[in-house]
């Protein structure tokens, strides 16, 4: 059952066709065997997970009613708080941090019966697009371990792709769920801002961050979001809407679907096979009776500039809390050194270079005299980007394009920070506008004799996840054969 999707495993557990304990044990064994190569997990919770799975098996045998995720092993990105184990953000700063509470998303998954199998590695504090900036070592791509899995939800993507869990959750501030999903050949959903509570998600860019599912199928993403979404009194930015009920409708194709392809998305800067995948998706939709329309998003290109003002500005403010006093890493002072040195040295020892770079960038742009030139202007452009999406969605239901400009790249290939930032050109505007987007597998490219997944992205307007995932499911069905041609090289 390790490569079945979560929904199939859930059904098999409920009918007694599979044992939750056996499925969980197989995934834990695979994690023990493969984690030295992939580094997807920071830690796993064998005893806890097996005990919970056993309890579900007992309930199933006794014929007791089971919650919707009963017994399925789910991995949690390590910037999402869990009482179990640590919550390190893959940072030395929080290397020993143990959360006194579960994040709302985790709490809801647990009450839906999911078994927390482990915590997954990320680019430190979710800042990165490769999985290389992790204090616990780089995460590797299961399709080719000489390449990155993408980031920042690197370990979650690698664990799902390699069969080390049934599904995972990640966080997406500018593409951190969708881009690694694309590079690892899985489904990654960034819900509308406000769909899922951020309570217990370690804050990075508070007006951009969302928690979302990373899964082996579109229907799994629907089911996971159904179990996590909805108003939460502990996060005043959650939308005052009931939890979604997407799993019930996801198999139903959207009649009269209008798919917009922004002309700016099919760029000469993309890998040709990425553009070909988008074209194949358009052809598949056309064959299913959808209408393909050309869309125009001229501000696509300024998304990265806008993002790299807003996100570092919010990050510099959010990360000011790490001062070495109440929790987190504290530096040793020498006699005579002052309080400023305690703060500064604790932070410089605790944060890695990319985190320090973004804190400095944000601090600079918010500093006296520069605020209007950077932050205020970026927020004005932000509104223009949102208005541009609104105009596009007046003409179509979903927007189709690449998730990332290329398949997985090699370690060190984007050592220049700006080059790394540009990997997110197609994903950041989703967060800037607060709308929803999903990446799903669309075939493979072959590099160095290895198959590498290519993902395509669909975006829909705010709170249109139902249409988004139904459209995604249509494409997933059309691409079933295309995606079945290869499997990850390193896998359970």
């Amino acid at each position, binding site marked *: 059952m390790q490569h079945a999707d979560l929904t199939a495993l859930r059904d098999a557990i409920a009918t007694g066709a599979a044992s939750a304990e056996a499925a969980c044990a197989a995934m834990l064994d695979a994690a023990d065997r493969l984690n030295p190569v992939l580094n997807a997990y920071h830690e796993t919770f064998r005893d806890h997970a097996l005990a919970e799975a056993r309890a579900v098996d007992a309930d199933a045998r006794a014929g007791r009613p089971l919650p919707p995720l009963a017994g399925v092993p789910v991995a949690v990105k390590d910037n999402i708080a869990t009482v179990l184990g640590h919550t390190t953000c893959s940072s030395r700063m929080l290397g*020993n941090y*143990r959360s*006194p*509470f579960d994040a709302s998303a985790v709490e809801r998954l647990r009450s839906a019966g999911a078994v927390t199998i482990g915590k997954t590695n990320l680019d430190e504090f979710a800042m990165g697009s490769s999985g290389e900036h992790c204090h616990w070592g780089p995460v590797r791509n299961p399709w080719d371990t000489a390449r990155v899995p993408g980031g920042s939800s690197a370990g979650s993507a690698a664990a799902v792709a390699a069969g080390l869990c049934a599904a995972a959750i990640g966080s997406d501030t500018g593409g951190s769920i969708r881009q690694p999903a694309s590079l690892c050949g899985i489904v990654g959903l960034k819900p509308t*801002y*406000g769909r899922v509570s951020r309570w217990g998600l370690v804050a990075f860019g508070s*007006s951009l961050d969302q928690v979302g599912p990373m899964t082996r199928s579109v229907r799994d993403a629907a089911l996971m979001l159904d179990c996590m979404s909805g108003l939460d*009194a502990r996060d*005043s*930015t959650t939308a*005052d809407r009931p939890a979604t009920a997407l799993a019930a409708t996801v198999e139903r194709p959207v009649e009269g679907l209008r798919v917009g392809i922004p002309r700016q998305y099919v760029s000469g800067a993309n890998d040709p096979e990425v553009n070909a995948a988008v074209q194949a998706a358009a052809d598949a939709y056309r064959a299913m009776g959808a209408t393909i329309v050309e869309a125009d998003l001229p501000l696509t*290109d*300024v998304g*990265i*500039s*806008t993002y*790299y*003002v807003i996100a570092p500005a919010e990050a510099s403010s959010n990360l000011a809390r790490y001062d*070495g*006093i*109440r*929790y*987190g*890493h504290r530096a040793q*002072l020498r006699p005579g050194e*002052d*309080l*400023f*040195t*305690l*703060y*500064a040295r604790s*932070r*410089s020892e605790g*944060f890695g270079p990319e985190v*320090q770079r973004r*804190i*400095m*960038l944000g*601090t*600079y742009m918010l500093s006296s*005299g*520069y605020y*209007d*030139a*950077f932050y*205020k*202007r*970026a*927020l*004005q*452009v*932000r*509104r*223009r980007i*949102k208005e541009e999406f609104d105009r596009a969605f007046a003409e179509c239901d979903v927007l189709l394009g690449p998730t990332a400009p290329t398949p997985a790249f090699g370690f060190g290939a984007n050592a220049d*920070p*700006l080059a790394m*930032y540009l990997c997110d050109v197609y994903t950041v505007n989703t967060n800037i506008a*607060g709308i929803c987007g999903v990446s799903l597998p669309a075939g493979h490219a072959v590099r160095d004799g290895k198959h590498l997944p290519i993902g395509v992205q669909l975006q829909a307007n705010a709170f249109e996840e139902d249409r988004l995932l139904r459209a995604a499911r249509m494409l997933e069905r059309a691409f079933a054969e295309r995606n079945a041609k290869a499997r990850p090289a390193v896998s359970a």
Partner: protein
Amino acid sequence: MKEQEARGNALSAAQVAHVAKLARLEVAPGRIEEYRTQLAAVLAHIAKLDAVDIAGTEPMAHPFESSNRLDDDEPVEGLPIEAILRNAPAAEGRFLAVPKVLAEGD
């Protein structure tokens, strides 16, 4: 003036050192130039924002216009002190312990 300076991408080593201080970061003198080059490249890219016509556009700090939601005015349990102190770098009894930072007579 400062706006032009920012746009002119004239980030100096002294500015990087100043920003590090504002951000409470201890940057070794040998790393200032590396940060200066990297930050300057990002700032030059950000200058693309200048090309966007934003006349009359209100800043948008948040994806959705939302209003404050107020909780009922009822006491709720906070976290127990032990749960907080478990993560403290140093603790004494029920208190966080910090290094002495005031000299005698301060």
